[in-house]
């Protein structure tokens, strides 16, 4: 195999430091391509040097060069549009053999629908003879005896495409920033080719092609945690890239399942081997289940104006959240939209903890405090507080012999709903709260990560006799929909008010002043939509975004926000948001499945919580 000429390695100051010892590296000049060998187990890091630069990628088996990445096979076997770090991470050949696997990706938007750019593309646009990735690939693959093609079916890393609702494939400027990369792992000896796309006639490369850098790392890096699987996500322009991480409990969870997904920056189980979401769900409803909710974000709010800040920024009346109590509510924006939902825990009038979903929650609170001139510190504490949820009818029985409260007068049986206390469980210090996201009696245990594995082991052992099972996200989602509990991005976002989302009861409108009050006073009078529960007259399950119609009419009255089949109720149910005129219990509406015309299923409006609407189980 002919190797590309490798010049003495210069020091590159325009890209992030290498992840580890580099076996080889290549700088691909704008508008060019290279080919290079990779052996089985080696890692390939493709780095966008300046940002907004597409890099097309080809891989062939080194021995015969007859096997190449096949995107149709890849999509079919993975069931996703593009492989991503996690369970569905591999790119496959036409014979279904894995060639490379995505280990890390800091961009999150790539293309495999289009060929690498072709001469024809430029000809049709009025640029005959314009350099193209396909011609460049032909040139660098010719020394290996590979026949030229008029267009190469490449993986177009950093190329921003999507399919719109009309079936058009749209292309826009790449999402990638300077230093963004994909890290691949070779599953066999390969001949690879990478380009720095020359397209300067549209926005794909930001109208200005720039270099790409490729680094090759040795297979021994598989033992290096830096090379762990991770997705890189950005939540705000002024927040750093965040790579998926393990929680304190993930190592234990990995022993029980390979089915992990990235959820809010943490690897969490979707379901467990030899169990599955149905079995896990029934464990929760009938016995007890244990789940890792460390993906929740925790912020310590301290200072003389801690109360003032939360009273203004949080929807509930914080006067009623006295030490040892917590309350569910939401952070609001000036137009009454929900920034995030979460729980405020009160330790003292100068010390609270906010537990929500977003890394930006703390920044939002801090900004409010600064604008108001309040003396308060908002500290992100998620790195030192990981949490398990032990939920189910037997959760209390499992915990009772294990827990010792710091305050001797507190007992597990006396710990009321939404109360919390410092305790030790099996000698492990933690915060124990009677909260949950399942609609069941249950507890959350907030612990320092260094004792996470020990806590997991302790609870799993203690619960064995009661039929305790670990719970994955699929089962959790089924349970929370039954219980009418909200999920960010489904029931609410920053354009949806609490009155629309179904948590208007969390808004303490009598407070003299709070964020969004003026807007909410108007919205409350007639929210554009309100949250309802639906029970469908079919065993088919609805889906997020499906339209809801007035019975017998063509016009819509709302949309599905979440849906599932309820094993307990033995019915297909949904959470939805509909116009107030159709929100009365008992009204019959129609859910438009498929294209909304071929199949309409009747549904009855009812309580948002189809399961235990009076919340009797959580208050046991």
């Amino acid at each position, binding site marked *: 195999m002919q190797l590309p000429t490798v010049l003495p390695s210069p020091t590159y100051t325009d890209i992030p430091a290498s992840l580890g010892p580099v076996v080889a590296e290549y700088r691909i000049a704008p508008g060019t391509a290279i080919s290079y060998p990779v052996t089985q187990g080696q890692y390939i890091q493709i780095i966008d040097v300046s940002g907004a630069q597409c890099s097309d990628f080809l891989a062939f088996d080194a021995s015969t060069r007859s096997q190449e990445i096949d995107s149709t096979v890849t999509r079919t076997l993975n069931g996703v549009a593009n492989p991503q770090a996690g369970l569905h991470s591999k790119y496959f050949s036409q014979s279904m053999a894995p060639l490379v696997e995505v280990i890390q990706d800091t961009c999150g938007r790539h293309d495999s629908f289009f060929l690498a750019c072709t001469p024809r593309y430029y000809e049709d646009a009025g640029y005959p003879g314009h350099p193209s990735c396909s011609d460049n690939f032909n040139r660098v693959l010719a020394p290996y005896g590979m026949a030229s093609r008029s267009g190469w079916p490449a993986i177009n890393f950093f190329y921003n495409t999507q399919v719109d609702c009309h079936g058009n494939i749209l292309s826009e400027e790449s999402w990638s920033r300077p230093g963004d990369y994909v890290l691949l792992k070779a599953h066999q000896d390969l001949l690879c080719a990478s380009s720095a796309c020359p397209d300067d006639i549209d926005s794909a490369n930001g109208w200005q092609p720039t270099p790409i850098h490729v680094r090759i790392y040795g297979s021994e890096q598989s033992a290096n945690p830096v090379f762990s699987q991770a997705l890189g996500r950005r939540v705000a322009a002024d927040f750093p890239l965040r790579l998926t991480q393990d929680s304190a409990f993930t190592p234990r969870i990995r022993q029980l399942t*390979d089915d992990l997904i990235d959820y809010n920056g943490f690897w969490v189980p979707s*379901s467990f*081997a*030899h169990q599955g979401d*149905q*079995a896990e769900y029934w464990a929760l409803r009938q016995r007890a289940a244990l789940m890792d909710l460390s993906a929740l974000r925790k912020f310590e709010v301290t200072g003389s104006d801690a109360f003032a800040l939360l009273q203004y920024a949080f929807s509930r009346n914080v006067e009623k959240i006295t030490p040892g109590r917590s309350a569910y509510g939401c952070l609001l924006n000036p137009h009454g939209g929900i920034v995030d939902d979460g729980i405020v825990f009160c330790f003292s009038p100068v010390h609270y903890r906010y537990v929500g979903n977003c890394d930006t929650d703390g920044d939002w609170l801090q900004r409010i405090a600064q604008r108001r001139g309040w003396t308060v510190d908002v500290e992100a504490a998620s790195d030192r507080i990981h949490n398990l949820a032990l939920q189910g009818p037997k959760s209390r029985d499992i915990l009772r012999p294990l827990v010792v409260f710091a305050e001797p007068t507190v007992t597990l049986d006396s710990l009321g709903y939404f109360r919390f206390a410092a305790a030790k469980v099996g000698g492990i210090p933690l915060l124990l709260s009677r909260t949950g996201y399942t609609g069941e009696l249950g507890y959350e245990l907030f612990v320092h990560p260094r004792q996470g594995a020990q806590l997991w082991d302790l609870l799993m052992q203690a619960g064995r006799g009661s039929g305790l099972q670990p719970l994955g996200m699929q089962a959790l989602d089924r349970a929370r929909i039954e219980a009418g509990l909200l999920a960010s991005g489904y029931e609410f976002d920053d354009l949806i008010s609490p009155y629309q989302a179904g948590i208007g009861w969390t808004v303490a409108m009598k407070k003299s002043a709070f964020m969004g009050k003026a807007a909410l006073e108007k919205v409350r009078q007639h929210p554009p939509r309100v949250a309802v529960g639906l029970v469908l007259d079919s*065993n*088919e399950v609805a889906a997020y975004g499906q339209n809801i119609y007035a019975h017998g009419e063509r016009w819509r009255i709302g949309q599905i926000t979440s849906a599932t*089949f309820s094993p307990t109720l*033995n019915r297909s149910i949904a959470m939805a948001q509909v116009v107030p005129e159709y929100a009365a219990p008992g009204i019959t509406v129609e859910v438009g499945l498929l294209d909304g015309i071929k199949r309409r299923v009747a549904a009855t409006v009812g309580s948002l919580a189809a399961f235990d609407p009076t919340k009797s189980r959580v208050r046991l």
Partner: protein
Amino acid sequence: MGAAVMNNSLWDLAGVDGLAVAKRLFGEDVGYLGRFQSLETTLAGQDCSVLRLCDRNFRIAYSGPLHQLVAPLQPNTWLKQFDWLTRLSLPISQRPQILPQVTVRPPHRLENLPNHQAIPARLQSIPLLIWQHPPQDQTILELHVARKDLESLTIGLEQLYP
């Protein structure tokens, strides 16, 4: 080796009302099964093994006329006996020899495969479904395989016992 081709009394049931029909036939317990989990029961006085393949998909090992029991329910499902599918049984005592030769794809796992559990797998590139369960109180490894692969599978199993 002890592999025995079993009678062709496998039924596949699936459709929108698959779960509802299964519950009517086998009781509420079938709703508690996770994917690839199974239970042993009786139906119209005959032994029956029920394997859940998905939310609304079931495979039933039953020697009786299941179609006669399902038809009156007029469900939104189909019930079929695949003529391209067959099954072998192996004594559970052969599990230590068989399972090391089998490969599975994530997220499925072979280790600690419990009773009443099936798993898609391959033995020497032959695709099959391995089902460990106790019909008539005798635990077996039941292998579901395409008829066209039966001979190859049989040869492959014999090679494990030189």
